[in-house]
């Protein structure tokens, strides 16, 4: 443990009493991050450390005939070269839900970029060059790349001998999971419809494109264990998958969260964790692995590309009659989170609308494409793209305003999802649409200046492609629903340890959780909660590690709800202990100790009438209160595998967008002028962070609307654009003004009434932009991202 520099650090922040919940308190890690001192996982350093490198398959589906590592191992500076045969135990696979992912390829590779061998060397370039000398002979196999090739008779099987718990319920071994939802009689309802619209939609493969590359440092321990410093979304989930492969008990794999440079779902699965540990344990030296950007595109799962078939009907007065839909998600070579993505896509496929009669099916495929799993919005994003396009089509066919049509069919509190579950908290869908529509529109022709056109404000921007000829404006709307937290009966708990003591003459609270701070601001909010509940100013956030119980994942918009809830709950119990301590010390001094409701405020014990009974310093002097408790939200249940019925979700999050675009119809270039958002957040614990999350999520949705897509060659299943040169994410020039209107309708079931917020804005921004482009051009546009050729017909 000695010798590691730049490890994660305790974050201590003072704050006055008004820096509790509801205040826009600043990040406790802000100063470290702006000075370059914050220790991200790729910044870790250890004297005497080696660099690890992963050799990846150059083909998508092949038998491995032979691997020869001798030449690589002979290179000066190389300490170890490992393949599947070097794994220390019989546990050779891992996986989030299904343990189908090999640590290193064995016998065959199933996707382009699959890890095959590992090298440790004294310089990253030495490791890379040695890896290039590993000789692998492949015998290529036929590919599974889409539903047709996956399920036709005699199709090659991606996993020949499936034994997972979904295997018995799927119609074909190349289908990971299938979830039908049937309620009412969609056929009969369709006969009542005055208009019916159908659509076939394609959603491209999106990448999380977090900026901090997959990286970490594994340090072998003297006890035969290993210390792993890593950027991840869920330490304990990693631990559960890592320890068995290493053949170590979990207590000998000590994990500490390093600085995380964004995640967005892409760090839910393991990347370099096991590889670094294997190399460290083999060489007896600390090993650091840092992916470069090229490798990062192979090092994490992507958002499922999808094909969606939708049929909706409506009566002539504008009421939805039914929905029939089928959603095919391409999960790629390994399961990752595909089963849960299927659950979300199906259960949220109607969107935030009242539709009684439904016939829904969602499936995820195994294929030889890159593995897909979690990304912000998780299955709900793809569905939202399709149902919102359908809403516009219906409104157009009925001659109705698209916003009014949505409002007419909007769900509200008490509406039942197609799964039969009642939405039992505020569902202000119509109101969010009203708000976003009511915002003032940006002025027309903003590019016009006294000197002519400011090309920077036009489609094509600095490329100076147009001066305003052929530029038309469009406006589009969309709204979406996202579940918060892990669904379908998952035990979605979190743990918090809170300690209260006097340090330097001041009462101080320390909050210790295993929550992954990935940029979302959880550390800020935890300090705010502790201040509010414990009446202290100084709060220290302990680095996240596995020395405390699991916090669950920083995903599914759940962390403020669940770990925030755990911190609140533990603080409440700590407060009781502190009050007991006070009663013991001072109870005889004042009758209120026994009779009044007491709170901790401004460093004092105060009655509900505002009378001060004692200073916390005096109560705590010489003693510390220290508790670690688990906390759970309401339980959920699995969806029925045939009917899809079940109370599968715990909470919902709603956002609406209005997009204003300008399109150069001659060149097929789009400029998004403005993307206004209205979102219900239940209670904004930190309004500044809430708005930041909404704007960030909105921008990721904008990206997939007009530029972001991992292109997989359908003939070879190889990724064609694994770089920031070719995979484009929005720059500050591509991103418009994003005005945000925050609504706070409390969910009585949630801590402080809060609602998970991170994902909802990613849902509706994509269809809103598409709607605006359709509005500008009159084109149908059924796929995302929209490319110039789709707009110009070339």
């Amino acid at each position, binding site marked *: 443990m000695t010798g590691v520099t*730049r490890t994660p650090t305790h974050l201590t922040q003072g704050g006055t009493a008004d820096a509790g919940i509801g205040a826009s308190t*600043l*990040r406790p*890690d*802000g*100063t*470290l*991050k*702006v*000075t*370059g*001192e*914050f220790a*991200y996982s*790729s*910044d870790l*350093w250890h004297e005497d450390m080696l660099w690890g490198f992963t050799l990846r398959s150059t083909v998508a589906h092949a038998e491995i005939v032979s691997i020869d590592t001798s030449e690589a191992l002979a290179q000066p500076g190389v300490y170890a070269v490992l393949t599947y045969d070097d794994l220390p135990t019989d546990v050779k696979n891992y996986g989030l839900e299904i343990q189908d992912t090999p640590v290193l390829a064995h016998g065959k590779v199933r996707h382009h970029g699959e890890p095959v061998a590992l090298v440790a060397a004294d310089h990253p*370039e030495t490791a890379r060059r040695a890896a290039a000398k590993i000789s692998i002979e492949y015998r290529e196999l036929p590919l599974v790349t889409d539903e047709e090739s996956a399920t036709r008779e005699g199709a090659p099987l991606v996993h020949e001998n499936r034994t997972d718990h979904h295997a018995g319920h799927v119609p074909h071994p190349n289908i990971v999971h299938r979830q039908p939802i049937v309620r009412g009689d969609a056929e009969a309802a369709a006969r009542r419809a005055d208009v019916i619209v159908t659509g076939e939609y394609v959603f491209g493969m999106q990448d*999380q*494109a*977090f*900026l*901090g*590359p997959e990286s970490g440092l594994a340090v072998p321990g003297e006890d035969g264990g290993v210390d792993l410093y890593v950027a991840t979304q869920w330490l304990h989930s990693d631990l559960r998958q890592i320890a068995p492969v290493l053949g170590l008990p979990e207590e000998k794999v000590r994990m500490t969260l390093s*600085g*995380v*440079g*964004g*995640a*967005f779902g892409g760090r839910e699965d393991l990347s370099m964790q096991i590889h670094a540990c294997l190399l460290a344990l083999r060489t007896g030296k600390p090993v650091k692995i*840092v992916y*470069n*950007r090229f490798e990062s595109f192979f090092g994490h799962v992507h958002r499922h590309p999808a094909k969606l078939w939708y049929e909706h009907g409506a009566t002539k007065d504008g009421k939805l009659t039914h929905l029939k839909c089928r959603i095919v998600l391409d999960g790629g070579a390994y399961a990752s989170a595909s089963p849960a993505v299927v659950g979300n896509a199906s259960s949220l496929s109607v969107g935030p609308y009242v539709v009684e009669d439904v016939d829904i099916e969602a499936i995820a495929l195994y294929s030889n494409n890159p593995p897909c799993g979690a990304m912000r919005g998780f299955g709900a994003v793809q569905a939202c793209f399709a149902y919102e396009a359908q809403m516009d089509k219906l409104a157009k066919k009925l001659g109705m305003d698209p916003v009014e049509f949505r409002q007419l069919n909007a769900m509200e509190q008490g509406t039942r999802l197609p799964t039969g579950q009642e939405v039992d908290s505020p569902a202000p869908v119509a109101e969010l649409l009203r708000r976003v529509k009511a915002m003032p529109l940006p002025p027309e022709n903003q590019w016009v200046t006294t000197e002519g056109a*400011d090309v*920077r*404000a036009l489609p094509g921007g*600095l490329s100076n492609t147009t001066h305003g000829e052929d530029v038309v404006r469009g406006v589009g709307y969309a709204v979406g629903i996202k579940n918060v937290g892990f669904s379908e009966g998952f035990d979605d708990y979190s743990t918090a340890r809170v300690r209260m003591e006097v340090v330097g003459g001041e009462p101080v609270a320390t909050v210790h959780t295993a929550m992954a701070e*990935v*940029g979302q601001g959880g550390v800020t909010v935890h300090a705010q909660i502790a201040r509010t509940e414990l009446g202290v100013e100084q709060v220290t956030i302990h680095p996240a590690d596995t020395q405390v119980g699991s916090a669950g994942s920083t995903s599914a918009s759940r962390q403020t709800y669940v770990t925030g809830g755990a911190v609140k709950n533990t603080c409440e119990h700590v407060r009781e202990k502190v009050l007991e301590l006070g009663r013991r010390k001072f109870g005889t001094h004042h009758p209120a100790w026994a009779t009044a409701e007491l709170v901790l405020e401004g460093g004092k014990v105060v009655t509900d009438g505002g009378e001060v009974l004692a200073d916390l310093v005096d109560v705590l002097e010489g003693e510390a209160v220290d508790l670690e408790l688990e906390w759970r939200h309401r339980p959920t249940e699995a969806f029925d595998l045939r009917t899809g019925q079940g109370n599968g979700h715990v909470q919902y999050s709603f956002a609406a967008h209005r997009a204003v675009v300008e399109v150069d119809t001659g060149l097929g270039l789009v400029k998004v002028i403005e993307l206004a958002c209205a979102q219900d957040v239940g209670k904004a614990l930190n309004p*500044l*962070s809430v*708005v*930041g999350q*909404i*704007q*960030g999520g*909105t*921008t*990721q949705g904008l990206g997939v609307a007009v530029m972001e897509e991992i292109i997989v060659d359908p003939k070879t299943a190889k990724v064609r654009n694994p*770089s*920031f*040169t070719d995979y484009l*994410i*929005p*720059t*500050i*020039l591509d*991103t418009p*003004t*994003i005005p945000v209107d925050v609504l706070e309708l409390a969910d009585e079931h949630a801590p402080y009434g809060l609602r998970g917020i991170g994902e909802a804005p990613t849902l509706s921004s994509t269809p809103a932009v598409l709607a605006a482009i359709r509005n500008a051009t009159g084109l149908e546009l059924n796929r995302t991202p929209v490319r110039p050729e789709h707009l110009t017909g070339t």
Partner: protein
Amino acid sequence: MRVKFTVNGREQQADDVWEGESLLYVLRERMGLPGSKNACEQGECGSCTVRLDGVPVCSCLVAAGQAEGREVVTVEGLADFAEQRARRGGCATGACGTAAGTAAGTASSGTASGTSLDAARRRQAKPAGADGRTGEQAGLAPIQQAFIDAGAVQCGFCTPGLLVAADELLERNAQPSDADIREALSGNLCRCTGYEKILDAVRLAAARGDARTTGTGA
């Protein structure tokens, strides 16, 4: 090979540098300055932006040998750099808006333009060996404080590069329009914020700079 250059006002030297090593690698792994970030190492994201003789560059695209004898400012030195500039009346290089551009292609020019050695030595006021934790003590550059105050930092991985680029923009153009800010920062990707709060931060720093200038009658 051996490479010597000045980083944040201090002479630094690295031995056994491989010819292909980038300035970014040498800064991060050999000189213990990991503030410049390794997000793409392809010159696409701007996370590794540093100033080389005053000019913002992607340090991943500069071979370490190209920095020989030159002046590098990283995010770790931004506060001192800004303080230096403030003392000189708004220009750390002493040649605002002109000299910065001329140094770009002249690797051999050493310290002929950019920060003078004298100025660099004065920046060495920072206690030696205090690299780890000097941010708060040394104070923050106005742009750093503005990023914190405006909520422009989320995961923070893009932040160092954005700070260096934004600081350079404000040095050239104390009152940039939104279009100017967007143009200047278009080489810096951010995946978390949606850029709105970054715009807010630059506007805030500009406004504060303006207030300070007018307030002191300078």
